[in-house]
Every structure is written in C-alpha cells, then in structure tokens.
C-alpha cells in the first residue's frame, strides 16, 4: 500500500481519518481544543456528499449522531470536557440501544470549564463510567498525529462491529501539534452485521451482538433506552430480562477485549516498567531512547478500555509499574487492581506534558 506525506495537525488528521473511514455524518458543537475537527469536517464533509450539522449544544450533538447512525450513517462528534459531560446521558442511550457511533474527546484541563487550551487526561474514568448504570464502551488513546488518523478510522470499525459508542480519547497535546504523517491510500473497513430478514432486532448471536436493523431496510425496529426485550419493546419489570440484557451489553465488549487489544510491549524482562497512553507516551519514548536501558520496560497502550490487563503480566520480572498521566492517577488505580507489585502513579496537572527529567526522577526515587 502506498501513502502520501503530509504535515498535519492532530485534529486535522482525526477528521481526515474519519473521512477515509467513510464517516458521512458529523453533528457537533465547537469547543477548544477539539474545534479544528469540526472545522475540517464542515469544510470537507458536504463536498463528499455527507452531512455536517452544528447542533445547539452537546446534548443534541450526541442525539444527532445516534439518530444518524440508525439511518445507516457512519456518524461522529468531537468535543472536550464540558461538552463531554453534557453528552453523558445520550452516551448511555447509545450503549443501551447498541448504536454504533464515534465520539472524539480532545481532553483539556478540568473540572468544569477549567483550562480550555491546555492538555489533560482527566476524563479517562468518565469515559468508562460517566453515564448511569452498568455498561461497557471502547476507548482508544492516540499518541501521535499518525495515530489520530489511524485510531479514528479504527474507531468506526470497532463501533460498527460491536455496536457500541467508541471514544477517541485524545489530549490537547496530540490534537494541536503538527507533525509528519504518512496518509495511507485507503483504510480497512468493517461494516455492521445486518439484521437477517426474519430475526428479532435485539436478539444477539453467539458473539453477543445482534444484527443491525437499520431504519428504512424493511424491519420494524423500536429503539428505546428502557430495558427492552429481543423485539426492542419495553420490558422494565422483569428482573432476569434486565440482568441478562445489561450483562450482555457489558460482556460483548469485555469478553472481546483481546480481540481488540492494541498495545506494545517493550523490554518485557525489565524490573521497572512504564505504562502510558496518549501524550505521555511521547515522554516515555524519549526516556527509553535516551537511557537505552533494558531494565526499563514500557507497556504502551492504545486500547485503554476495555483495559488489556493481561499485557501487564507479560512483564514477569516487574518490581514496580510507573504510570505517568495528565490526571491524578486515574488509570494507575485500574492497573493497581491487576498487579501484585507497587504501582507508582506519576500524576501531572496544569496542562503540560511530563518532561523526560521528571520521569527519570520518579524512576530513581523508587529504589
């Protein structure tokens, strides 16, 4: 496969990745530091026959992509913290109704309106648990402009395959920087499994995923956020039906975590191991490059949810895991659940990446 060279901003690469993946609906509300995604889609999407709508807010933006998805569109939105909070109710609706869609969150400093122009990773738990009730989602974290493109395209495939909202959890650092990217001629496309002619619209197959009864294709589909039976009709007081439905919504993602897991294991024999995702990956890479020390390992994760916990076990000699994050240790706590050795959280708030020196200091402080 050939590719072409570009010098793009991360947010541009995200929009271009979406276009390459066949995204044909964007509903959103501009917010720093994600605005360039919407700007680029507004300029490009209508020319490709797609629809761009600037909605009145992020509640409506999320609703719009859910509706578009049911008409068969590959639909996405892009936002940041305050908008992401507003989307939470409809994200739960998308999870409950098994609606494929892609939500880009270019994270900035929070809580509230916080630091609009600065970098953060403060929404990593919100993306997993922010809407009410039990459910599961998929979240991807890019660490380069190249990955802004590739993981956005991948997000659409995962959304369609698993019928779930998929999140590109970028950060301001990666969203706003410009760097070299090799843009592939085409990207892989995995489409939704269609609903068979005589099948019930919410009856899952062995993979726990029902066929998609797209509006306008001859099926009678009722889509509701209420607990529903396999026909899609509300059935809100049957304890077993509710338990089975919610368990399936979670299991279809959690059971498939290693089918979608995307991570790199570097120096698996090391005693000290970094774990990073998103922007901080770049600082760890710099430390690994400068130190050239086989005793420093690195688990670099792209699929943060569902969390690929088995990857931690690959570091059999690990005496401690070091987790630099642009938050107060959100994923460090998740990692703690899965390992028996100390987990050293290296939190950083304020909006800037850790420097290589800060990571080395954290390594050396732990003897």
């Amino acid at each position, binding site marked *: 496969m050939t590719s072409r060279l570009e*010098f793009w901003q991360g947010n541009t690469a995200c929009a271009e990745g979406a276009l390459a993946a066949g995204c044909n609906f964007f509903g959103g509300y501009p917010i720093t530091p994600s605005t360039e995604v919407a700007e680029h889609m507004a300029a490009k999407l209508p020319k490709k026959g797609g629809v761009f709508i600037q909605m009145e807010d992020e509640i409506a933006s999320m609703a719009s992509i859910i509706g578009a998805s049911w008409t068969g569109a590959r639909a996405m939105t892009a936002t940041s913290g305050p908008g992401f909070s507003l989307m939470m109710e409809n994200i739960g609706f998308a999870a409950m109704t098994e609606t494929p869609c892609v939500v880009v969150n270019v994270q900035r400093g929070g809580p509230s309106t916080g630091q609009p*122009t600065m970098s953060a990773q403060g929404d990593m738990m919100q993306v997993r648990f922010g809407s009410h009730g039990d459910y599961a989602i998929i979240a991807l974290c890019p660490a380069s402009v190249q990955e802004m493109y590739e993981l956005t395209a991948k997000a659409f495939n995962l959304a369609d395959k698993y019928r779930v909202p998929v999140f590109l959890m970028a950060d301001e650092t990666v969203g706003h920087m*410009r760097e070299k990217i090799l843009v592939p001629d085409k990207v892989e496309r995995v489409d939704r499994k269609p609903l068979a002619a005589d099948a019930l619209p919410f009856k899952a197959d062995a993979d726990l995923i029902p066929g998609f009864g797209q509006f306008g294709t001859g099926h009678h589909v009722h889509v509701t956020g209420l607990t529903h039976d396999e026909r899609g009709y509300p059935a809100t007081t049957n304890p077993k039906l509710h338990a089975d439905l919610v368990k399936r919504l979670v299991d279809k993602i959690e059971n498939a975590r290693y089918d979608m897991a995307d991570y790199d294991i570097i120096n698996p024999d090391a005693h000290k191991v970094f774990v990073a995702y998103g922007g901080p990956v*770049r600082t760890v890479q710099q430390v690994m490059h400068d130190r050239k020390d086989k005793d420093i390992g690195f688990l670099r994760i792209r699929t943060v949810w569902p969390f690929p916990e088995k990857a931690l076990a690959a570091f059999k000699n690990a005496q401690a895991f070091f987790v630099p994050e642009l938050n107060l240790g959100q994923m460090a706590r998740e990692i703690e659940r899965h390992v028996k050795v100390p987990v050293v959280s290296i939190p950083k708030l304020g909006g800037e*990446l850790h420097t290589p020196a800060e990571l080395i200091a954290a390594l050396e402080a732990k003897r």
Partner: protein
Amino acid sequence: MRNEIRFSGFGGQGIILSAVILGRAAVMYDNKFAVQTQVYGPEARGGASMSQVVIDDAEILYPKVANPDIYVIMSQEGFEKYGVGAPESAVMLVDSSLVHSRPKCRCIGIPATQEAKQTLKKDIVANIVMLGALVAATHIVSEESLKKAILDSVPKGTEDLNLKAMQLGLQLGKQP
C-alpha cells in the same frame, strides 16, 4: 541533530504561520522530521504570541521544545516574555525595527518590518522576511524547501509578494 526553534511576536504578525511553514519545509521537502506546537492562551490575542518547532533527522519522540537553540523574535514584549532567557549558545534573529533589547547570545538584527514596508509596501509579510533571514543565517531548511512551503501556505494571489519577501530576507540574513 535536534534543533529547537522558538518564534515570538505579537498576535497578527503571523508568528504561528511562520512556525508552520518552517515545519512544513522540513517535513515535506527536506525529508526530515518536525513537530510544531504553539501557545493557545487568550493572551495571544494581541499579546505576545509564541510558537515552536522541533526539527530532527530522526523521529521526534518528546514533542515539546525544552531548550530552544534558535530564536526568531519580532516584538519587544515577545523578547521579554520568550527571548530574554536565551542561553549564550543560542542564536537569535530579532526584528530590529521592533525589538530594542538584545540577548547575551549571538544576535542578528533584521529590520524586517521596516524593509517590508519600504521595499515591498506591505509590512504584513515581515514574518516571511524573517523566515528568509532565518534560513540564510542558519540553513535550518534549504532555500528551495522554504520557498515551496511558503507557496503551499500563503493565500492565492499573494505568492509573488511572499516570494519577494523571502528573497529580501535571504539577502538581509546573509549580511555579516
């Protein structure tokens, strides 16, 4: 070889565009790696604007500028905020029509705004004059690559003006 270049001036001079053009020249036409970042704060609206570029022959891992070795400063406030701490080993190009302070490092004064106004009748292209001078003084990218990146980046109808500005900068930057 990693070079870190910091541009500063006031909002509206095209400081960010200068950095984007330089990064683009390095990546698209010089077969190098580059990362461009910028300060997005609200103070950039009319206040001191700042953008930085890392250029390297090898892949760039840590994307931020830690210790710039080349400075391009186009306003006094930009000097005071982003240029005054330049180490002695650095080289600084200042727009001598607008910056009256001088750093302790090697400094090349380029009367970019004044020359753009007098010679080209458009001070809006002062940033391109500075880019030309930067390339003449440091060879951070090739002249040909800079030219192509400028042509990629400027509005239609302004190509000649911008190329004249670049040539003016190349001459001013070559002066000892």
